[in-house]
């Protein structure tokens, strides 16, 4: 789809506007009603009332984390799909999410680690090990990395990591309650400090990723082409892999394993701007953040007390203990139809 840069810039501005609107919506909408005045006052109020306190302590950290994680997952997915030249690659499918989650659970449950600084590094380690393992396993053989082998290797290792995680949680009831929500992929009740610690890592990888745009476009045409044009493909791949680990691992450290965002977003972005990575990557960043913010708002309303679904469940005899759905559940349910469409297209008889 040849597009002039003119349209691409307008499109990019539109995605930025969408991100801004969803960010504000994420501050405003939820169980506690916040009106516009409160929202504006909360910015500078030193003696906040209850609503302003909710905005300052809950909604703002939550929206910021959703934005950062969404940007990171969108970019990580685009990098992975480019690097493996495989339309199904993404942190969730690759087993990176499940691997990083297992490492974090092991650390918190067996080694009683509770500082987010350590969690972050452990999540990076888990992401690196599981991603490397799946890559290695699925590139055995002559035909190399086919979508099928990648998906199966990823699914199988995900099953393995998940079972281990559940097993550890089962033997240690104390951590289960705190960790169950995190394990489903959630950005509720996160500390802003954890995000601030992660932010430099995220920022460095965002910038590196954007600089990789040109090299990635050449690389996706073909490795030989890239080499012929004088690109040091080894370096490009290594830096891209490092960025993926920081982006995906960091996301798991702060928000748990949120699946399928990294898979869907690059496809939507590619549909909008084509496969030039210089444009694709920023689109992925803004679209990813918008998507995660909206999914999070959806999760707040789905089983909100008094909502239609909750009424139905109460009539069926359920007493729900939680009043919102973790965002990871929402992205999984929205993402699967996309996955199926892509899977159908990627295998032709």
């Amino acid at each position, binding site marked *: 789809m040849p597009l002039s840069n003119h349209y691409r810039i307008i499109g990019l501005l539109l995605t930025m506007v969408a991100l801004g609107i969803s960010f504000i919506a994420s501050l405003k909408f939820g169980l506690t009603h916040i009106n516009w005045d409160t929202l504006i006052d909360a910015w500078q109020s030193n003696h906040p009332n209850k609503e302003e306190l909710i905005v300052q302590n809950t909604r703002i950290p939550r929206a910021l984390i959703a934005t950062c994680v969404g940007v990171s997952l969108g970019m990580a997915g685009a990098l992975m799909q480019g690097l493996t030249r495989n339309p*199904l690659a993404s942190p969730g499918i690759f087993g990176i999410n499940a691997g990083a989650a297992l490492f974090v659970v092991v650390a918190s449950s067996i080694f009683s680690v509770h500082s987010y600084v350590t969690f972050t590094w452990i999540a990076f380690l888990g992401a690196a090990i599981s991603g490397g393992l799946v890559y290695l396993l699925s590139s055995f*053989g002559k035909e190399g990395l086919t979508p099928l082998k990648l998906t199966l290797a990823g699914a199988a290792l995900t099953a393995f990591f*998940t079972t281990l995680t559940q097993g550890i949680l*089962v033997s240690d009831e104390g951590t289960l309650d705190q960790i169950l929500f995190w394990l489903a992929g959630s950005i509720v009740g996160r500390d802003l400090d954890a995000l601030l610690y992660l932010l430099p890592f995220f920022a460095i990888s965002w910038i590196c990723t954007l600089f990789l745009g040109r090299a990635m476009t050449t690389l996706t045409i073909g490795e030989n082409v890239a080499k012929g044009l004088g690109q040091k493909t080894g370096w490009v791949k290594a830096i891209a892999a490092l960025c993926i680990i920081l982006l995906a691992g960091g996301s798991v450290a702060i928000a748990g394993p949120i699946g399928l965002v990294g898979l869907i977003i690059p496809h939507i972005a590619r549909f909008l701007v084509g496969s030039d990575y210089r444009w694709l990557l920023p689109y992925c960043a803004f679209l990813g953040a918008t998507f995660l913010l909206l999914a999070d708002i959806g999760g707040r309303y789905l089983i909100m007390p008094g909502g239609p679904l909750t009424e139905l469940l109460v009539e069926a*005899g359920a007493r*729900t203990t939680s009043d919102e759905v*973790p965002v990871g559940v929402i992205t999984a349910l929205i993402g699967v139809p996309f996955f199926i469409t892509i899977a159908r297209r990627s295998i032709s008889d």
Partner: protein
Amino acid sequence: MKNTRSRLRNRSLFGQFHPPTFLIFLTLFFLCGGIMIVSVGLGEMKIPPLQAGLALLGMGNPSDEVIIYTLRLPRLLMALLVGASLAASGAILQGVMRNPLSSPDIIGITGGASVVTIFFIAFLPQVATSWLPIASFVGGSITALLIYSLAWKKGASPLRILLIGVGLNAAANGLTTLLLILSPLYSANEAMVWLTGSVYSSSWNSVLTFLPWALSLLALSYFFSRHLNAQQMGDEIATGIGQSVQWYRLITILVSIGLASSAVAFSGPIAFVGLMAPHIARMITGPSFGRLLPIASLIGALIVMCADLIARTAFSPLDLPAGLFTAVLGAPFLIFLLYRSGSKT
């Protein structure tokens, strides 16, 4: 005379009579028996194998008999049935899909069965446990139906079935998490134990409910094994022999779903058994399904019984889910499989 006899042999339950396979079958059978005797003897109250064996036959110490009959034996029998069902289910799927990595847990059938079972356990506790296998089967079938229809594009190619199964498994996991968070009656910990796959809550009641399902479905799968041989050669050959490919594929898949989902109803999704057991069996017997299915079922039963024995005794007093140990066993196996399938092509 000789001719008639060989023809008669051909019609025997295990297809062609094959002395080495029969020996292996016997060996595995006695191995299962041995594990049973050791397993009923181990636990917090240790009973020496000889006395355990006597107690099993009803000739032992009365107090031993109480422990063995009320606590350990139902659990052990459940492990045996679950293992055999999962293994047979995996063997059928691998044959039909012609892919060494397909198994009910990877393509989402156990995932779908889990969703419906957890829904019943959490929201409709008044429903009797004897309905659980049916609920679970409905869940497994809906998933399979979705996989099949979504993979349809002038015929359902096995590769597309696999990929779409993986996708639906992700959706099933999302729904399970949602139900866990919504469920008030079931404490999250209990649900976790079930999800990891454990036979710890088995009683005679559940064993007797599961028994007819497991036996009839296993018998059906042996009955259909002839068609599976043709299926794994590929669509053209199977059609050439005169099989209606899509029709038999559907029936055999249904049997496989039944096996996997009834097992899931009682033990939760015990991971990797459906993947491992058929491969080990194939290394021993070769690809013919008449021999493969019984051997695979026995190996599956052995794996789950051993895993449960370890899970129950190794970290005593902790009673861990058996699924944890089948996963630990399954991962290296999987790496080996991927390596081998890669180096072949």
